[in-house]
Structures are given as C-alpha cells and as structure tokens.
C-alpha cells in the first residue's frame, strides 16, 4: 500500500486544520486522522523563546526516512511532518505530525513512532532565550527520549 509522505521544514507558522484537511481531502478511504503538535513551553516563566537550528538537507532526508519506516510498519494512507526552525515564541507550535489511515490504530501508532524517532534522530537543536536577558544555553538531550526508541524494537 502506498503512503503519501509530506515533509516541510520552515520558519513560518503552520495551520493544523489546513494540514488535516489536506491529508484527508479527496480520499474517501481515510477513516482516521491523528495529529500531534509540539509547543514551545516557558519553563515556569524562565524562557521567552526558543531558537531552533537544523541541518538543512539532512533534516528533510532523516524525517523522510522515519516516515518511510512508519509507513512500512503500519497501513497508513498519508503522513505529514512539519518542523519549524528559527526563533519560536512561547505557546507557538514547533512541530506537527499528521497521520491518516483507514482505522485509528495505525494512525495513532505511526504518529507516536514518528515523534519518538524525530526527537532523537532528526537533526534539530534548541537554544533557550531567557526571560531575564542572560545568555541561554542549548537544551540537553534527554536520556528518556533515547530510551523511548527501544520500545519500538522488534526482530
């Protein structure tokens, strides 16, 4: 079964409703659409923005590889991933994953799988902009994110 994969890396905001409509529009066999949005938190008021750096070219390619792996594993009709870069304010969306399938299980699982791999394998890095104006640091990778990948292991 072929899966339509759309990957966009952009600095501009995106509209979740537009992306949901685009992924299911015109395909009467889509019965389930799952969306995940990742937002910029203020970490108890200490941050006023995040700066997101990425590896142009590789970011698109790696997310494409993750989407292809998800499409091999579950019968999904279409997958869309949008990841922003540049300066992102508190409450703004950073990343969007949309998965469409005939039945809900495939869409739920594919969306979660893609987010888990995206966090530790897609070449993006977050730098903090602090509310008090002091120099922010690069966000550390979490071991829990790395561990999350092992639950998708299988023979």
């Amino acid at each position, binding site marked *: 079964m072929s899966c339509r994969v759309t990957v966009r890396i952009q600095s501009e905001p995106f509209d979740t409703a537009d992306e949901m409509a685009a992924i299911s529009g015109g395909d009467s066999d889509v019965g389930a659409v799952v969306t995940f949005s*990742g937002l910029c938190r203020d970490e108890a008021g200490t941050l006023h923005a995040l700066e997101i*750096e990425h590896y142009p070219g590789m970011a698109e*390619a790696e997310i494409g590889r993750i989407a292809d792996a998800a499409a091999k594993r579950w019968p999904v009709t279409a997958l869309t991933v949008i*990841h922003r870069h540049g300066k992102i304010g508190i409450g703004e969306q950073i*990343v969007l994953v949309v998965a469409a399938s005939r039945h809900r299980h495939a869409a739920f699982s594919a969306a979660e799988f893609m987010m888990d791999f995206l*966090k530790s394998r*897609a*070449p993006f*890095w977050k730098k903090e902009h602090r509310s008090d104006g002091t120099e922010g640091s690069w966000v550390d990778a979490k071991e829990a994110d790395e561990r999350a990948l092992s639950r998708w292991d299988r023979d």
Partner: protein
Amino acid sequence: MKLVYFAWVRERIGVAEEDVTPPAGVATVRELLEWLKTRGEEYAEALKYPEAIRVAINQEHVRHDERIAGAREIGLFPPMTGG
C-alpha cells in the same frame, strides 16, 4: 571533504563549515575526531568528549567506527533535541 558543524559544536569551533584533508591513516570517524582535536584549542574544547558527538556522513547518521573514505560531507553535532 567538507565538514559541517551545528549547535554548540559549531559555536565552540567557531566556524559553521570548512574543507579539510585529513592525513593518510585517518580512516574512521573516531580517528577523524581525534585528529580534529589536534588542530587547535577550540577543536580540543568542542570535541573534548568525542563519544558525545553525533556524526553524519553524506547526511545519514553513522557510528564512530564507520569509515570516512568517499565522504563528501561529514556533519558533527551534539545529541539532537528536536520535536
């Protein structure tokens, strides 16, 4: 070959990319990192803990025992924090 650096690796080395010609005998990613550390204080600082550095050859993730022969572009960067 072209080396490209990201996030704190880029900041500590002080350039975003450069062309280098490693000496003969530098065959793997691990050996490339060790050689780069000898190129100056900023490299030694950026690559102080080489096992923490993630590496991509021609924009695909590789392990440190991967051979670098034929690489057009090698990316060095910290663990990723996207999403």
